[in-house]
């Protein structure tokens, strides 16, 4: 089993193409590998990030890397980043800026952003006539955290208002691990102002850890050192 040391790797981008409604979100990192045999690029899937370095990954030549970038499979940061670290997560914020921080903290921060986005989405939905805006906010929330039932509810409500029943059903399915079909539909109707007058807000079936946003300035600073510094 070969371990590629972190010091030989540099974060150069991520293996995805994101649209505006798909951020903030976690992304799989792509590394440049300055090996003794030349320059390669490592794309996911990695088997593991361990203390000493990275195991696994798909090795690309520069030409194949460039082709993947052209196809849109890989997005490259304007400036080369720093070395990867064990236990860290790469995510893209709402301004398409890379963030690199300890995995648990990234999850917490994304969850808080998702809650804020879904709150905005509900307000915009209730204001009326701005369904596209509400849909985009709800999708951003879902991109940040896929376990917030309210994001699926808002999206379903907008699709229901547009008569897109297949997409309402899709949201119902995606949320089914949190909420059964009937309460889901009731909650959608309630969001649209056509539900039962005394409907109680749906209770998520799963107990989810609700953690406060912790300051992570040290990690943002770390990323600006690691990821924004040009080579």
């Amino acid at each position, binding site marked *: 089993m070969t371990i590629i040391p972190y010091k030989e790797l540099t974060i150069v981008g991520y293996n995805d*193409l994101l649209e505006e409604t*798909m951020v903030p979100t976690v992304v799989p990192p792509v590394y440049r590998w300055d090996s003794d045999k030349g320059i390669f690029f490592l794309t996911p899937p990695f088997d593991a990030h361990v203390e000493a370095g990275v195991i696994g990954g798909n090795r690309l030549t520069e030409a194949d890397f460039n082709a993947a970038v052209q196809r*849109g499979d890989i997005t490259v940061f304007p400036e080369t980043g720093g070395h990867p670290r064990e236990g860290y997560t790469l995510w893209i914020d709402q301004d398409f800026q890379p963030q690199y921080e300890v995995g648990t903290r990234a999850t917490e921060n994304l969850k808080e952003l998702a809650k804020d986005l879904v709150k905005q989405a509900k307000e915009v939905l209730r204001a009326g006539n701005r369904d596209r805006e509400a849909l985009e906010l709800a999708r951003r929330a879902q991109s940040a955290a896929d376990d917030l039932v309210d994001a699926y509810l808002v999206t379903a409500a907008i699709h229901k208002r547009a008569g897109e029943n297949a997409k309402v059903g899709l949201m119902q399915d995606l949320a089914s691990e949190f909420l059964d079909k009937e309460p889901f539909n009731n909650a959608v109707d309630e969001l649209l102002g056509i539900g039962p007058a005394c409907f109680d807000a749906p209770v998520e079936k799963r107990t989810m850890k609700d953690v406060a946003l912790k300051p992570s300035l040290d990690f943002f600073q770390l990323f600006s050192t690691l990821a924004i510094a040009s080579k």
Partner: protein
Amino acid sequence: MPDGYLLSKLAEMAAAENRSTAVTAETEAMASFLPHSHGTPAGTLAKIFASGKFISKQRLEDRTEWEQYIEFERETLDDVFFYLAPIRFPTGAPAGILLKREIDAERTDACTCPFDTGALEQYFTLPGTESLTSKIATYEVPVEKAGGVLRMWSTVCYDDARSYLDGKEIDCSSPIGVTLMDGCDCRAWTFETRFPGEVDLNPAFIEAIFLGKRRITSDEISDLASWAREQNILYSYRATGNDEQDFKTLKLLSRDYIDRLLEKAAA
């Protein structure tokens, strides 16, 4: 590219190492029903769907770039690649598709190789001094013969045929003389199917589509997910945010799906 050569190599190895050649209902099911898989970012899969077909790199890329690709030397630049296996290399935010084996009868121009051709001489070697294309041609078989080879391969090369589905290294010497290089993985023993030119996404041939919930957040991906749900072929999963874990989740999801498919077929 007949299948006889590969089958004879398997028979030789089975005799030399006293390996069982007894085919089970499980390996029969695998030979006939194991789908072709392709892993890719969700956005890419949605774009492929919107266009109605997979297209080879050669047809997508500028001619001036061709010679730099590893597929150029292997003469596989005008092919579309799948694995005859559960989803194995879902690069990027993982999504994937499985194609039914019924496509084999329609695409008789496709061929299957008992290894990932792109990994040859990158992650493993084969004996001989012939060109890469000659080595590949030696071992590839028409796709309609792939089931027969896989049947014997999974029987002879593994103590438990299901290990093939797990992507485990074979339990005997390589029948074709594979030597692993540094960092090699299951690409050295996973069957690859190559479809020349394009693969039309005929809904009749789509077995399943896998998408992370976190990525069903654009119009195109939402359209794909909605369509797949209506066809009853959508399998969504929650992403943890840890890309290693999410790749494993996708692979396990496709593996679970295939297990159920093969159990049903074997019954």
